């Protein structure tokens, strides 16, 4: 916008001129300073008064800085919003930012600006329309909900895809403002889902996910289209679409791994055996699996739905996306949907993401950790990519450790353990503790290395770091708890350690172990107690507690040897400085030493102390996390986040796949072919059409830019022309073009899918309908061109459209009736049933012979029927009610007067005689001038017979036509006498004056048109 542009439209009073002079002062000064309040009123004047160029500074600097800092700038609202109609784009944008921020607080003032946006919605420039809708829908003021709704609906059928995209964005905004609008919004979503442009696809699926994710039925028809468009959608849209399609596929297709999972369940005993094979020879294993799968498949064949395959095929290239979110989305799709043998492809891409920012690594590793529990083999080749560097953040280190632990098996455990050994020396103590736990888990999972691990851990007991020792003791304790009887030597070894180990936590843990398993080391345990009793007074508190425990347990199992020792220890403890220990000693003494007063509890002392303690389970915290959709926030947190859509289980039996077939919409096409080709149209076009369409379609598919395979020069040209023409000036026409082309594509797709489909039942019906139609066409020989009228429009008829014409053929059941030929076309996507007529409301005397009920009208098909109406020689409309199985439509048929008669044969003499009898009031004469082109006899005859159902009197001197009205049989005589220079005289003789008058008008119109 030029700097010299005029003053702002909303000039304030005269004071403004003065204010403008020190305009720069407050702005260049500190806005963040606390005294901005003092200046605030001044700003207000400035904003109201300034030149446009300066406004940028004020609106921008002042209000934005305050918004950005979270300060309340709402006082400036009226002043700022005034500028909404400003022509300067930057000012406008800044005002929009401000408006959207504060509209909720200042609703009344915000409403003042609405009209500006409403004007913008009608702008010829698509970008302005889009931005107007964007801001309008961002204003969170409930009063304007109807306006927003209207704007969205209008924009959804805008010819510019960009505006339609904006409409899709506006849907969730309106929904969050007023959830009551849901139903209407779903209609808009449904409409936009059918959109064929990549620009819209991502946004509308996002709206779908926010408004009505449960309406999976809306996706059926668009499923294939979405799959095909996917690669050309912008990256954010891809993520949303892929996540939605994952859920969709889970409801619509069968589990491709069903057979294999059965196998696993059946042979769970063998599982470990296979597991050990896995890494040795992946190929062999795969072959084996395949063979097994094949064997099973014989029993229970599984054929993947072609649509399922389509989804997998079309998402695979996106693993190469630069956007980590897209890669993750595809990876989770493969993990949840692909057959086991194919899931492997995602590993490489996920490992690549580990090079990215640490936040990305964090999320990816979480998901990899879950995947490795189920599909360990997938990531085994990439084991080394999960090795830990000292520079990794602790969060990442711990996750990598988790993955390494999950990947460990008999073959790689030695390398992994060697790696763990270096980790133990790390400076990051949290990480060291996690490593020790990981070693413990490896030891429990892999029997072979349990002893090695235990030995390693035992060595760690002498580590200087308390955390390390404590963690090792805890892990050893857990390991020993699993098979204590086998490891009495380790317990013995640990007993020996008590002489050396000084870390109290470790000593305590060892004492607990010996106490717990004193039966396995019956000789050593009392000796340990003896040593401990000796050093009791020097021990730390936690050790003292464990000594007490040990003493109690030994007393219960081996009281002969340890009775005195226990007494001694308890006495020492009785006078300890720590009250905790004194308490414990008192408690134990009461429990174990039988006295006269001892309560019932002492009977159960053994049970209390030596209860069998369950072995702690060492399993991955990522186990069972895969019931959450991978890559989701809920999975990451392992808790259901708000708005999370459950990943449904596979269905038992596949739902009807035909729901995804897209129906034909080629009414016009077939309509033409039908009349011309009559008999043989059925056979001919099927194949020819199909192939030509397919060719055309292939061309179209190439058009999308990213996905084209054959470079040539084609894509360049198209890109050139399209971008050039997309400039704002002629963008409208351009988009219109693209729209029409997309529409033709749509019908192509439809026809193709229809051909694919083999719905026999349906075809039968079609054929039947065609037969009926043919017989009708054969019996009726239309004289001249028949003019058809619309009875029911496809919009009001919800896809059903009806046309009628007057066949001018005698209606055989009742000669007094006019035959009306109806043509029904089903434009909707579902079939229409039981098409019939009911409750005819007629003028008195009128009669109707209804047409036979049409049982079934398949989608996209056409059917005809003939009905008879006795109009009683009046042009009053016959009001009828047309019913389908679901709906009723009120329609009316109004006959042109010319159709209310039928021709009679009169000789010229008879004609003259009759004419002579119908003179006076029954004769109407009109002068007219014929157009030069239509002065010949033939033209006149044709025009008159078209206008009225009459026959020409043969060999007449003038053009004479005769007929009788259908009901009463009154004669209608028409004479067109031509003179010189196109002057002609029209005479109509008819007993019924009303009909006569109307006929004159009609014929006059026909002749002079």
């Amino acid at each position, binding site marked *: 916008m030029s*700097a010299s542009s005029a003053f702002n439209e909303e000039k304030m009073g005269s004071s403004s001129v003065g204010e403008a002079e020190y305009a720069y002062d407050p702005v260049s000064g500190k806005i963040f300073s606390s005294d901005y309040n003092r200046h605030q009123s001044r700003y207000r004047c400035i904003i109201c008064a300034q*030149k446009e*160029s300066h406004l*940028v500074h004020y609106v*921008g600097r002042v209000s*934005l800085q305050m*918004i*950005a*800092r979270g300060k309340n700038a709402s006082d400036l609202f009226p002043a700022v919003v005034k500028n909404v109609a400003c022509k300067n*784009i*930057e000012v406008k944008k*800044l005002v929009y*930012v401000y408006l959207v921020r504060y509209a909720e607080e200042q609703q009344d003032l915000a409403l003042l600006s609405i009209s500006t946006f409403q004007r913008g919605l009608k702008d010829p*420039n698509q970008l302005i329309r889009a931005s107007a809708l*964007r801001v309008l*829908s*961002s204003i969170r003021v409930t009063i304007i909900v109807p306006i927003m709704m209207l704007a969205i609906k209008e924009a959804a059928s805008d010819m510019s895809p960009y505006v339609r995209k904006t409409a899709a964005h*506006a849907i*969730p905004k309106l929904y*969050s403002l007023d959830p009551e609008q849901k139903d209407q919004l779903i209609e808009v979503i449904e409409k936009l889902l059918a959109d064929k442009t990549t620009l819209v696809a991502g*946004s509308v699926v996002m709206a779908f996910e926010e408004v009505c994710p449960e309406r999976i039925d809306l996706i059926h028809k668009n499923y294939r289209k979405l799959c095909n468009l996917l690669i050309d959608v912008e990256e*954010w849209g891809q993520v949303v679409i892929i996540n939605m399609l994952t859920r969709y596929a889970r409801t619509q297709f069968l589990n491709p791994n069903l057979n294999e999972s059965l196998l696993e369940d059946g042979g769970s005993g063998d599982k470990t055996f296979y597991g050990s094979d896995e890494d040795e020879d992946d190929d062999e294993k795969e072959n084996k699996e395949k063979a097994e799968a094949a064997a099973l498949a014989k029993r229970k064949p599984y054929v993947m739905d072609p649509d399922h395959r389509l989804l997998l095929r079309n998402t695979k290239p996106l693993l190469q*996306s*630069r956007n*980590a*979110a897209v890669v*993750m989305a595809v990876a989770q799709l493969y993990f949840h949907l692909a057959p086991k043998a194919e899931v492997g492809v995602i590993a490489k*891409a996920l490992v*690549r993401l580990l090079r990215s*920012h640490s*936040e990305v690594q964090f999320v990816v590793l979480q998901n990899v950790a879950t995947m490795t529990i189920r599909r360990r083999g997938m990531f085994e*080749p990439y084991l*080394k990519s999960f*090795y830990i560097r000292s*520079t990794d953040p*602790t*969060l990442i280190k711990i996750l990598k450790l988790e993955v390494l632990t999950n990947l460990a098996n008999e073959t790689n455990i030695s390398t992994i353990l060697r790696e763990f050994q270096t980790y133990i*020396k790390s400076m990051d103590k949290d990480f060291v503790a996690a490593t020790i736990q990981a070693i413990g888990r490896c030891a429990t999972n892999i029997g072979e290395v349990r002893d090695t691990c235990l030995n390693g851990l035992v060595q760690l007991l002498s580590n*200087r*770091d308390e955390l390390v020792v404590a963690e090792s003791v805890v892990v050893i304790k857990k390991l020993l708890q699993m098979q204590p009887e086998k490891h009495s030597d380790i317990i013995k070894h640990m007993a020996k350690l008590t002489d050396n180990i000084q870390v109290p936590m470790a000593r305590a843990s060892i004492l607990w172990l010996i106490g717990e398993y004193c039966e396995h080391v019956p000789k050593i345990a009392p000796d340990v107690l003896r040593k401990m009793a000796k050093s009791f007074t020097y021990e730390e508190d936690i050790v003292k507690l464990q000594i007490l425990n040990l003493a109690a347990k030994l007393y219960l199992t081996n009281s002969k040897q340890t009775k005195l020792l226990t007494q001694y220890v308890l006495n020492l403890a009785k006078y300890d400085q720590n009250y905790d220990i004194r308490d414990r000693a008192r408690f134990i003494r009461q429990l174990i030493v039988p006295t006269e007063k001892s309560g019932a509890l002492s009977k159960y002392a053994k049970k209390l102390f030596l209860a069998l303690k369950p072995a702690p389970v060492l399993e991955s915290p990522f186990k069972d996390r895969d019931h959450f959709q991978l*890559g989701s*926030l809920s999975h*990451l947190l392992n808790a259901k*986040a*708000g708005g999370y*859509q459950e990943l449904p289980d596979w269905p038992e039996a596949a739902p009807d796949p035909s729901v995804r077939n897209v129906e034909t919409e080629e009414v016009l096409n077939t309509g033409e072919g039908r009349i011309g080709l009559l008999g043989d149209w059925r056979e001919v076009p099927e194949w020819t059409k199909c192939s030509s369409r397919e060719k055309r379609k292939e061309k179209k598919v190439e058009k999308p*830019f990213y*996905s*084209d*395979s054959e470079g040539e*020069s084609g894509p*360049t040209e*198209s*890109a*050139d022309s399209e*971008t050039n023409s*997309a*400039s*704002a000036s002629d*963008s409208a026409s351009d988009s219109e073009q693209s729209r029409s082309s997309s529409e033709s594509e749509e019908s192509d797709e439809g026809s193709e899918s229809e051909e694919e489909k083999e719905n026999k039942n349906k075809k039968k019906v079609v054929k039947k309908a065609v037969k009926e139609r043919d017989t009708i066409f054969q019996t009726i020989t239309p004289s001249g061109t028949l003019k058809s009228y619309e009875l029911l429009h496809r919009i009001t008829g919800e896809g059903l459209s009806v046309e009628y014409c007057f066949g001018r053929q005698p209606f055989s059941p009742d000669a007094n009736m006019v035959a009306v030929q109806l043509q029904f076309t089903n434009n909707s996507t579902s079939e229409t049933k039981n098409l019939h007529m009911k409750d005819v409301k007629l003028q008195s005397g009128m009669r109707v012979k209804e047409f036979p009920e049409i049982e079934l009208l398949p989608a996209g098909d056409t059917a005809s029927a003939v009905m008879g109406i006795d109009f009683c020689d009046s042009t009053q409309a016959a009001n009828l009610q047309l019913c389908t199985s679901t709906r009723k439509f009120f329609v009316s048929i109004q006959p042109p007067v010319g159709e209310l008669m039928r021709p009679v044969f009169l000789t010229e003499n008879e004609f003259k005689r009759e004419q002579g009898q119908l003179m006076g009031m029954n004769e109407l004469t009109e002068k007219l001038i014929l157009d030069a082109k239509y002065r010949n006899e033939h033209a006149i005859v044709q025009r008159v017979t078209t206008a009225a159902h009459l026959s020409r009197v043969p060999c007449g001197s003038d053009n004479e036509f005769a007929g009788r009205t259908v009901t009463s049989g009154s004669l209608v005589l028409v004479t067109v006498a031509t003179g010189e220079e196109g002057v002609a005289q029209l005479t109509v003789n008819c007993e019924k004056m009303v009909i006569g008058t109307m006929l004159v008008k009609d014929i006059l119109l026909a002749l002079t048109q």
Partner: protein
Amino acid sequence: MIHSLFLINASGDIFLEKHWKSVVSRSVCDYFFEAQERATEPENVPPVIPTPHHYLISVLRHRIYFVAVIQSEVPPLFVIEFLHRVVDTFQDYFGVCTEAAIKDNVVVVYELLEEMLDNGFPLATESNILKELIKPPTILRTMVNTITGSTNVGEQLPTGQLSVVPWRRTGVKYTNNEAYFDVVEEIDAIIDKSGSTITAEIQGVIDACVKLTGMPDLTLSFMNPRLLDDVSFHPCVRFKRWEAERILSFIPPDGNFRLLSYHVSSQNLVAIPVYVKHNITFREGSSQGRFDLTLGPKQTMGKAVESVLVSSQLPRGVLNANLNPSQGAYTFDPVTKLLTWDVGKINPQKLPNLKGTMNLQAGASKPDENPTINIQFKIQQMAISGLKVNRLDMYGEKYKPFKGIKYMTKAGKFQVRT
């Protein structure tokens, strides 16, 4: 999807907030500060923090936390990737992404954020489109704007969003038409105590700077495309052509962009261009430790190893280090215990060496952990994997562009365990 964005600096001040839906109070960041306190290191703050009503997803770049507030389920990577894209855009616009730069350009930042998200869903993230919408500030333009009062906002409406090639702006004109490609490879390696390689991988990128008039269509082919094991492309690259012919065919965005990043198949043995001889020992009982480090080149194909920088996190017990470098300079930070040695170029005749003693805390026991040594280096004019560009062709435009290809090898995460 994304509700709000808060920018928090290293000292914990929220210096910018932006809301796309209703306003979320900045007190929500208290949960973030809590997590920050709990984490010892700045990078240890968990990227996703659940709070009672919201979820906070944050990224840390240039010592600024970008904290996005989310209210309901959304793929976390979606948000993280977007936040990184925001940072990249800021960097692209202001050269640096610092608190000062953002504060200075508040208006542009706001305009950018407004364009990038609509109702929390990404709208325009492509740099070429954004630059058409909002002109990046330059010193000259800022001056001109101040004097004439014109603005940063593009005058004509952006058509890029509507075109088939959304990543390229229209009507590009240059007097000198040039296309430069940098093939940069990074070696990630872990070398163990004895000098044998535990793991080594090569990751590469091809960064391009294309300044070509009109709407050129480029193809880039390699001598040995089989080397590339795993690739990810800029959206402009035609994927099917790559699948079929292993040729990169694309209409480039205008300016700088990353065309391709790749991973060299792990079957190939990776040549490690440097070796390290080290002897870092602490003796029991003594309060001193010995430090001796020598670097040397190997398998560099005659190219010089430059800009070598060695860093190592010494054990906590180390109080001070008295070292003597044969070349370059070293620093030791007694607080963070970080030792860095700026070596410079490695001279194969006279290998760089750093030798001396470390003083331990008196009375402290010998540390059990051994420090790891991180090495950075650069080798010009060589791609370590041996990848070579065969030719670059242009179609669709008449003029003859100037083409240039540069190779470079760098150390990525190159670590030597001791």
